Each structure stands twice: as C-alpha cells, then as structure tokens.
C-alpha cells in the first residue's frame, strides 16, 4: 500500500508517494535523484548512506521513509549554498580526505555532525565520531587531518 510522505530535504519541502517501508536512502536516490548519498552495505555498518535527520546522524539505509515523515533531512547536496563549499568539503579536497570518494559524502556528514557539536575536537574525538563510517582507501589518517583542518577554520 502506497502512501504520501511529506518531509524536508535540504530546506525544501518534499512529498513523495511511496511504500511506507521504502528506505529513506532509496527515496533520496530514486525518487528525489539525490544520488550523493551512497549505499555500501544496506545493513547499517558502513555509514556510506549517512545523512543528518533532525540533527542526528543516521544511516539512511536503516530508516523506513515512514519514520522520516515530518522530519528535516540534510544530505551532501545541501550542506553548502549552491556553487559554494562547506569548510569540511574544502578540507577533504585539500588534505586528501577523499580517494575513491564513495565513503566521502557520508564521512563529510559525520564530520559536520561532530563539528556542529564539538567545534574543536581532539584527534581521539574525531576517530570516535567517525568510527561508524568505514573507509577502505585512506587508512583514515587524511580524513582525520581534514576534519582537524576544517575545525581550525571554524571560529
């Protein structure tokens, strides 16, 4: 049975007609063509599908769209004004924080989520905050450098 779900994505109100158990990840990617959010495992382990929902970092592969009803979701496409870059994006590009790039959108959202709460984290806090996001390319060191650099650019 299909139903209508209304929620906010990157500050825009969206209404989709879909199955209530369809994953938020698929609604973003298929219904809204926001393909920046990636799928690495579909079981809540890799964090490639991370988005920020009502201020919480969630794995969008584990969220049925029904639960997103009325919520406000931020994805990689909405973290910076059009044509601009978020300081975290700039830092990832400058420090080598993205290699193959598949973990990058989720990783950047996890980093933003951390920095919004803890603007000047220690490296240990960064490691902990990113431990739900797997990266197989970088060995994490340059990702941690990126978050540190972004943090130093935040006042």
């Amino acid at each position: 049975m299909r139903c209508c779900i209304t929620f906010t994505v990157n500050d825009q109100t969206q209404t989709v007609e879909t199955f209530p158990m369809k994953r938020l990840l698929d609604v973003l990617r298929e219904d809204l063509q926001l393909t920046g959010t990636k799928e690495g495992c579909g079981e809540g382990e890799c964090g490639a599908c991370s988005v920020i929902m009502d201020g919480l970092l969630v794995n969008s592969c584990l969220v049925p769209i029904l639960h997103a009803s009325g919520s406000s979701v931020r994805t990689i496409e909405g973290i910076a004004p059009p044509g601009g870059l978020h300081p975290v994006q700039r830092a990832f590009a400058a420090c080598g924080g993205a290699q193959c790039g598949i973990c990058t959108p989720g990783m950047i959202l996890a980093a933003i989520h951390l920095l919004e709460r803890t603007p000047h984290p220690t490296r240990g806090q960064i490691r902990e905050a990113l431990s739900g996001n797997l990266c197989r390319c970088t060995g994490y060191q340059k990702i941690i450098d990126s978050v540190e650099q972004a943090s130093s650019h935040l006042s």
Partner: protein
Amino acid sequence: MESRVVGQPVQRKEAMAKVCGAARYVDDLQPPGVIHGATIRSAIPRGKILDIVFEPGVPWNDFVVVTSADIPGRNIVSLIHDDQPCLASQIVNHPHEPILLIAHPDEDLLRRARKLVRVQYEPLPAVFDIDSSLKQETIVWGSDNVFKRYLMAKGDVDSVWTEAAFLVEGEYSTGAQEHVYIEPNGMLATANDREGVTVWGSLQCPYYVHNALMALFGFPAEKIRVIQQETGGAFGGKEEYPSIIAAHAALLAWKSGRPVKLVYDREEDMAATTKRHPSRTRHRTAVSREGRLLAMDIEFTLDGGAYSTLSSVVLSRGTIHAPGPYRCPNVRVRSAAVATNAPPHGAFRGFGAPQSLFALELHIDKIARAVGLAPDEFRRRNFLETGDSTATGQIITQPLDLAALQERALEAAGYRAKLLQFQSDNPRSQLKKGLGFATFMHGAGFTGSGERHLQSVVELQTTADGGVRIFCSMTEMGQGTNTILTQIAAETLGLPYEKVTICQPDTALVPNSGPTVASRTSMIVGMLIERAARELKEKLRSSAGPFRVRTQYREPPGVHWDDETYRGDAYGAYSWAAYVAEVTVDIATGEVQVDRFTAVQEVGRVLNPVLASGQIEGGIVQALGFALLEKIIWRDGSMVNNQMTNYIIPTAMDVPPIQVLFEEIPYEHGAMGAKGIGELPMDGPAPAIVNAIENALGISLDSIPVTPEVILDRLRDHVRELETSPV
C-alpha cells in the same frame, strides 16, 4: 630543472565532484526504461545440474530469463585460459557459481523471484583446502588439480645443508581476504543488433571487459564499448570479476532489448566475487656461523579456487618475491597454485607478494633468534646491495642501501630505546608491549616479459582552449591515476595543471594502455605520457596544431627475461621498504592494539606527496586488517560471514598514527623518476605486526589473521610448555 607540478601536492583532479557527491558511480545512473538483473547461483560446491524449476509465486512471463543457451558466442569468461563458463550449464564447480539470470523492472518482485528458482543437483565430491587438493584423491580440475607450477632456482641448495651451522625450518599460512571496496560491484548494459553492446561499470580494466564481451557475443571490437564510471575502490577486486558482471548484464540487455542494471548487494559481492588467495609457505634455510644465508629452500602454495583465472600470474609474483630482499647464493622456490571448490580467488593488492613475504619476514625473525642475532643485525648482514644478483639472477643496478633504510625506520620508530623499556615494563603488566618490523620490496609493472607483450599505447591531443587532453585506458579508482598522469603531462608540456584534462576511460575513445594493475600506472604508463608530451611539445614549437600524438611502450635497454627458466630481470624496478609496528597485547583478552606505525620506503621520485602518502597509509590499514581482523569463515567452499557486521575491517578507532617517510631516488626509466607504489604498503605490515606480537609475548606465531582467540590459545600452549618442560 625546478618542477612546478610534479612533486607538488596538487589537488586530486576529481576532488570537487567527490566532496560534493556529484561524482557518478554506476548505481547513480538511471536511464529511462532500465530494468534490474539478478543472478541465480549454485547452492552447492560441486555437482551436476539436473533440473531448474521456476516455482509459482511471481508472474514468470513478465521476467526475462537468460541461460547459457542464450549466449550468442562462446560460453567463457575470456582471460588467460578458457576454463571458466559465463553461465554454468551442466556442472557447477563452486558455491555461488552463476547458473542463470533473471531481470524485471520491479526490484522487490525480482528479489522474491530469485528465491523461487530451484536448481536440482547431483552432488559430486569436492575439495576445500590446499592439502586435500594436493592429495589428488578427488580431482576437481584438469588431471591433477594443479593450475600452475613454477621452479625458480639459483645455485644448488642441496649442496649446502651439511656444511651449514644452522638449519631453520618453518611453515606459515595466510587466510583469504575480502577487498571490501565500499562500492559493491555493478554494471549497466545496453545491447542490440545495430549498435552492439555497451556497458558502463565499476571496473579496473576496460579492455579486459572488452575482450571478454567480444568472445561472449562473437562481435568485432568496434561493436563492443566499455565505459568506466567513477569507481568506489577496487584493490584488485575489480580486475577480472567485472567481466562476468558485464557479461551477465549484457546478456540480459540483449535478450530483453532494454537497459539492464546489475548491481550486487554487499552479501552477494562478498560471497560470490574474488578474494585474496589463501597461502601456505614452507621454509628451510641454511645459515653460516657468521649469520649469512647459505641456502633458502621455499615451497609456496596458493589455493586458487575453482577456475584458473589469474592464479598463475598471482603465483608468479608470489614466487619471485618469496626470497625477499636478501642475498643468498643458493635459492630454490617450488610453487603451485591448486584448485579447490571455492569461488576463484583473484587479484588483490600485492598479488601473491603479501603472502610469500609474510612467511619470509616471520621466518627471518625466527632465523635471527636461532642464530642469536638481533633481527636488524641479521638482516643487515644479508641485505641485497647494488651489484648483487637476486634469486632470478637480476643484477641490482639501481643505488640500493637497505641497511640505511632499515636504520632510518628503526630510528624514526624509537625502536632500540623502546625495546629496552618494554622489556623492563612488560613483566609488571597485563598489557604487553612489543616492536616488530619487516624489510621487503615490491616489483613494479608486469612480471618478466609482460610489459613487452602488452605494448601499451597512450595518446595526447591538443584542445581548442589551448590545453591538452590525455587518452588512455588507465582507470581512477581512488589511487590517483587522473591526477598523477595529468601532473606528468602538464609538467612536461609546461602547461598549468588545470589546462590538462583526462578522458574518462571508454574503449570507443581511448587506446589500450594495458590494465590498471601491478603498480604500473605511474611508472610505466606515466612514462608513455611523458614521452608523448615531449613529442607534442616539440610539435607545438613550430605550429599551434591541432595535433594528436601516440606513443607505445618500449622496453628499457638491457632487460632480459626467460619465461621458461624463470631467470632474468623479473621487473624493471623494485620499490623497497622497512616498516616498524609497535603493539600492545592484552593477555587477558587477547586483544591487540597497534599503537604506532612507521613506514619508510624508496619508491623512486614522489610525484604527489599527498597522494603518495595516502596510498601508503591506506595500504597499511588494509594490511592491518589482513593481519589482525579479517577472518573469512568458510563452510563447504562458501564464505558464511559475508556481511560487514561479521567480516570486520579496520575503523578509525583501530588504526594507529602512521608516520610515512620517503627516500627519493629517481628511477631513470619511470615517469619523472617514479617507481611503483600502490601495492608495496600491502606487503610489509602483516609480518611487522605479527613480529611485534611475538616480541611482546615471547611466543611464536605462524598464520594470519591473529585474532584474540589465536593469541589466547597460543598463550595457553605456551604456559603448558613452560610447565612441562624440564627446568
């Protein structure tokens, strides 16, 4: 000459697209009318297919179904030998072997349908490990279960056993390893009579896929087109297997007349696609009283899985690397890749070398203990130097000072002072600290005559805006191809980095520059780009163009290799390294934490310091997983922990601070002085870490992964030995 672009940390070419989520991976493509494909796979390790039943429950008439009977050309996955079918027709030889394909627009319905296809089998006996394969009681491949054997010999090992002061023996093994690129495998295909076959996908080697599709469809080259999408990690795992997925997607597209997307989910990807070859290595070594190697007798065996695929080539590299960076007058390596009824094992960063070097570097520590020398001193007495000959008889002509490399690594790691400190602290603590290291090398480019056979080509073309565009088949999968090749061209042409662009690999547009494997991109293909750029620059002196120039591989002078005797110049150049690991082991839980890691390497000239250290750090962490965490649980040839929840790779919490240091000695035949880099960091960390654990606990280990259970077991054995041994 001062360089403006090469050697600088210029930003990755596709960095902006990646940090904005705009890079297009195959699953991001959604062409109109696309339908989804699924693969029905063997549920048993080996047997005859008796019947295929489509049980009721879905409207089967709405499905596209493809069996081997639908293949227009040959039912093979064309690679080296033609033993692997694209779809099994009568016999299955491993679990998860593809048997038939189905497609439908509705993914949910497709998922349900998949469970309603029942294949009936008559099981046949199967083998699951190296030992039972070698026993040859059950033959599952060819006449003897052996895909390939090599004998690599120098001097006469048998002449020295009696005169040696020390004989040291050991047996070591490594487990399979899953690549866990974060983007699972996937392909999108269209196919029809008029235009032929086009596939877009996550892949390393466009021309491997091209070649496989030509054989499968019986089409001429121009009717097959392969396009690489942004690729979310590969590590060898997208070297040969994508040919199969492309073939399947293309067959479904051919039969349905619609675009077909075939994207694996994580469970299917882990269970069905390739993994690193499990290995077993036996060493017997003769050493003189002064601690010099007299003879190394090595037996190296790989489990290749059910079909030959790339096993002979993986075996070759593992064989050549087995004696390591040491001087020894008498060496014999006898190696074999054998068949088992597991999905074929395949290419994985390091390609056989991590396996044989793991064994060697543990064994070297063991020898040092037997001889009574410190592990660094024993190595120092035996390192290859400039002018020495390797086990294949290759003379080292490049400047090489491994003792200095080792010393620099030990110093940077604070090795000697810490060793003493740990020795005095450990007895008082449940947390035991230890240090270990490994010294090793990795040959860059294809082995032996491989590059000569490939005859790789690249092209450069001037563009209307005064820039230059690179055309080659080298793929970007995160390792930095786009950036490095652009840097080389820009530097040589004297153009700004931004003025040089690189064409997305598309077999309709780019020449065959060989596969993106074997740490060959910077050194070999980069050199072709450099030569092409020089030629283009010459032309541009007299006229503004437009020009398109083309260069082809030329073997450096004086390179000789004999495939029959396995003698000669195995690689154009080796990269060299010394890695040090510092660990803490909790003897109550068996938990190992790597506290610090120091990596010193000589990879020729570093073309981009951020990318280069990124390769090293990433490789080290992947190897840390190989050493400590990544354990595949097999049941009857099938991986049963095929999920990220129970196959554990390192997280940001598991990895230590890594210090990466380069020794830069330009290599004259590599692009701008570069040698290979991508695979080297996969070779050394596992033995360094395991040597460190041995150092911390005073026990000996011989296989990886070293999980907490292994440590606790060994500690119990150790206590028992101490209790029962006469005082």
